[in-house]
């Protein structure tokens, strides 16, 4: 029999206790309460030297109980001879995780990583199972367990060297937490768990920078039997500063001169604090005067770099003054303010606050990226074709002249969007002309109290911004007057909203390439409260976006992120992406985005006639190159980095692990504990019986109160 915790056997010495108590017991005497001892002559106590113990059976039971308890605590087990099928020596299963994120581009790190990984895999025994994974955003196997097993033991080193030589760090940011989980699952997912017992290890070869993302580890329960050994690669140069593009300030247009804002971040380990940021041309030549930036180690500064005179030159901003240049360039796509126009067919004056124009003009966006101008047109006059073509949208509130209506219909057929919001039933002729349905009649309706929007189609882009239940309450908008029109009279009309009485409120009709949006109540105060509600401006924005494309500022992307295609024009056909190095990649029809941006630079996305330039930069987290705090991995639930142990200690630990496994399978302590309880019960019964037997002889009874 073997013991897992033999020092508990010392507890068996506690049997001395009962022996002493049994010996001490001899000198104790009965006690009798008596009223007064004044007449009682004291008897000389006779010492009785008895060599034998009283109640030897009780003593024996007590000693046995203590002994069993001590043996139980020592965790006994029977060690079996190893079965024929089991490997004689400990076999390991290990995964080597090598970091290939952008920060590994720093000088010397990749060579060091390769040599460390090779050394680890060379040290693996012939029976060991190993896999080599590279990780940045995701972990992918470079050599899988199957490949490792398939390769002859002598050729494994060469295989590792070849595969590593063919790999290099990319531009992606690293998700260390995800990579560790992938490796742990690769170790845990097979039935190898039983076969390998506790000998499962992950070797992490990484620069372990502070920017590594570990948060996914928080939700993962790290398997207890998987050990993690960290091979942290020291950076050759301590100074590193990174450059990131910062979103434009809301008041950017109020600045004296246009500028691009960038953040300069200096790593905590840096020894220098002075850097320069400036524009660079295609061949790396400096454009304009660079600006000096002072950033103490561990801090960051946001600086505004003045824009160049020619926006076409503004492509790259370069930081200089640090040792590592992988994160020193940001690619910029300067935003250019767009000027759109919308046509308005109405007779009212611009400052008539009872009429629709007054409100529409104020709802049109005017921001650093986009300015929309309202062009008022007389309802009966013809519009110059260029102006009509240039306009993104046309609003009609008053009856149009027949020629103008025909002109607008023609524009609609060619792809124009018209929003028709009649202020009276007299405009039914115009509607008939626009839709080429002469018999249409509009009827003025005036509800007894007021009407409300009832049924709204939140799937449509016009109402999509309000789909969230927080914003979907339209009941606060009271409608005093509206125009009644049966949806059935217009073939192909889609009702987007209805009044609470059931009459259509907003309809969309496809006309050729374009469409007509029919709003059957005005937003002017005489008709409804729509213009003064919080829904009006988002609705106008949605209309513009639907007609002319995104009104937001262009987004910036990190390497590896999905870049959405601008499909606002309604194109569904194939698209192309031109990468920074000039390669063109085709995207299939229906694709909504591009996920293959693996290098920083400016990508040109073309969908139909629309082309967008998108800047893709190295993720900001890659610039945080100071080493990760030592306890950070443990804080997120992974085992802390372990120093490589000596083989003797390893073998001892292995043997201990095996022993504890055998012990936990046999669980002899349970039987011993049960036996202890049985002995204690017997002891109690015996003690009770003995006490009762003696108690019966005590006479007479004394009753102290």
């Amino acid at each position, binding site marked *: 029999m073997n013991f897992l915790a033999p020092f508990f056997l010392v507890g068996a010495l506690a049997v001395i206790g009962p022996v002493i108590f049994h010996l001490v017991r001899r000198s104790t005497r009965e006690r*009798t309460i008596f*009223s007064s*001892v004044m007449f*009682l002559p004291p008897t000389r106590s006779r010492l009785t030297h008895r060599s034998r113990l009283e109640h030897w059976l009780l003593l024996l039971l007590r000693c046995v109980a203590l002994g069993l308890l001590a043996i139980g605590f020592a965790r006994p087990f029977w060690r079996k001879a190893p079965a024929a099928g089991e490997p004689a020596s400990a076999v390991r299963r290990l995964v080597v995780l090598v970091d290939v994120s952008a920060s590994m581009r720093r000088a010397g790190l990749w060579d060091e990583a390769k040599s460390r990984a090779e050394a680890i895999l060379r040290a693996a025994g012939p029976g060991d199972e190993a896999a080599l994974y590279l990780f940045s955003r995701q972990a992918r196997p470079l050599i899988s367990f199957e490949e490792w097993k398939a390769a002859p033991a002598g050729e494994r080193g060469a295989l590792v060297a070849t595969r590593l030589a063919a790999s290099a760090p990319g531009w992606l940011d690293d998700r260390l937490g995800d990579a560790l989980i992938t490796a742990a699952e690769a170790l845990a997912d097979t039935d190898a768990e039983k076969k390998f017992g506790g000998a499962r290890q992950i070797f992490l070869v990484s620069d372990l920078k502070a920017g590594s993302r570990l948060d996914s580890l928080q939700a993962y329960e790290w398997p207890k039997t998987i050990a993690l050994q960290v091979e942290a690669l020291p950076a050759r140069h301590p100074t590193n500063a990174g450059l990131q593009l910062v979103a434009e300030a809301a008041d950017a247009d109020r600045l004296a001169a246009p500028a691009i804002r960038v953040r300069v971040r200096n790593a905590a380990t840096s020894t220098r604090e002075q850097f320069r940021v400036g524009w660079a041309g295609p061949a790396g030549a400096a454009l304009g005067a660079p600006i000096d930036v002072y950033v103490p180690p561990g801090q960051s500064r946001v600086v505004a770099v003045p824009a160049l005179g020619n926006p076409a030159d503004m492509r790259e901003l370069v930081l200089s003054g640090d040792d590592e240049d992988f994160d020193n360039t940001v690619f910029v796509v300067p935003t250019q303010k767009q000027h759109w126009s919308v046509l308005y067919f109405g007779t009212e004056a611009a400052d008539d606050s009872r009429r629709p124009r007054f409100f529409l003009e104020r709802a049109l966006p005017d921001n650093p990226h986009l300015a929309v101008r309202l062009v008022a047109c007389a309802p009966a006059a013809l519009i110059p074709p260029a102006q009509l073509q240039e306009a993104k949208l046309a609003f009609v509130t008053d009856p149009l002249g027949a020629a103008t209506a025909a002109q607008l219909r023609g524009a609609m057929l060619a792809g124009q969007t018209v929003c028709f919001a009649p202020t009276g039933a007299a405009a039914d002729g115009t509607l008939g002309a626009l839709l080429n349905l002469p018999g249409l009649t509009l009827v003025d309706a005036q509800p007894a109290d007021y009407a409300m929007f009832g049924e709204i189609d939140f799937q449509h882009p016009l109402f999509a911004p309000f789909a969230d239940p927080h914003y979907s309450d339209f009941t606060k908008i009271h409608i005093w007057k509206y125009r009644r029109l049966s949806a059935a009279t217009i073939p192909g009309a889609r009702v987007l909203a209805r009044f609470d009485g059931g009459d259509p409120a907003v309809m969309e009709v496809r006309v050729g390439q374009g469409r007509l949006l029919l709003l059957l109540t005005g937003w002017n105060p005489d008709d409804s409260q729509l213009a003064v509600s919080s829904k009006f401006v988002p609705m106008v924005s949605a209309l513009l976006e639907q007609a002319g494309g995104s009104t937001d500022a262009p987004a910036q992307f990190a390497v590896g992120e999905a870049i959405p295609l601008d499909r606002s024009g309604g194109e569904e056909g194939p698209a192309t992406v031109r990468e920074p190095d000039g390669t063109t990649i085709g995207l299939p029809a229906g694709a909504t985005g591009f996920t293959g941006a693996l290098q920083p630079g400016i990508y040109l996305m073309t969908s139909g006639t629309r082309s967008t330039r998108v800047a893709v930069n190295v993720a900001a987290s890659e610039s945080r190159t100071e080493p990760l705090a030592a306890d950070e991995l443990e804080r997120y639930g992974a085992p802390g980095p372990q120093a490589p142990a000596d083989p003797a200690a390893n073998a001892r630990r292995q043997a201990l692990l095996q022993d504890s496994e055998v012990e936990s399978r046999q669980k002899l302590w349970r039987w011993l504990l049960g036996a202890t309880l049985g002995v204690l019960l017997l002891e109690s019964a015996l003690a009770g019986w003995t006490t009762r037997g003696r108690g019966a002889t*005590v006479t*007479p009874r004394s009753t*102290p*109160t």
Partner: protein
Amino acid sequence: MSDLAHRSPLQSAALIDPRALLSVRSLELRARLVVEGFWKGLHRSPYHGFSVEFTEYRQYSPGDDPRYLDWRVYARSDRYFIKKFEDETNLRCHLLVDQSRSMSFGSAGYTKGQYAATLAATLAYFLHLQGDATGLLTFDEAVREYLPARHRAGHLRQLMLALEKPAGGRSTDLTEPVGRLTTLVRKRGLVAYLSDFLAPIERLETSLLALTACGHEVTVFQVLDPAELTLPFDQAAMFEDLESAERVYIDPAAARADYVPKIEAHCAAVRASCQKLGIGYHRISTAQPLELALFEFLQERRRRGPGRPVAGKGRR
């Protein structure tokens, strides 16, 4: 104990076993049981009208309040009689009851203290029925409670409550309560002294003398447990004194020969002191029925006071 019990006419009557009696929880009920059983036995005996002091009517003498004249008796007999009221009495009896820790010893399932309290309650109840005033003084090493002698509604209940209090105190002082009683009670009366007298008795005689000198008629009841007289234990053990908590290792077999004469000598000394002063002494064993003790008490009263009026019938 005197041999009077053997001659007692109560012998034929059904006596209540003290063990059964003391298992009754209420002290008042116990006293009532004893007294009523005693009355029943009495009626079958030739000893009618045992009483301490009893009168219903007294012949009018000049100076008496004419308010109390019984005019109906006058109408029948043409004599003036003064009507006595229930709360008017001539006898004042004080019960001196030891409640020290030594009284909490008992070998028969009840303690000496319980027995003495029942005896005191029985006397009090008997006297109360007679219309006599009863007072109480309990003590251990000091006086614990004092109730002046009264005969009024609720007094008996108060007295019972005081008697029911458990024994306390670490020693017994036999002289202090007597001295206190002499100062508290100026009018002469009857004093019944109930104790085990298991304490030094050097000054007992002096203090009892003070009582008799005050004109009190004193009766001493020495209440002892049978085990205290015979030491029937068979195992050597540590004997612990109830009062002083002193422990002495005693082998009863060896100590008995020495102990029994000593305790008998002590009792004899108490008895001698009493006899010297003309005080009635009764050694009561707790195994003895309470009626006998009551009977002894009344017998003695009868013997001692032949000149006093003894009513021919009791009032219940």
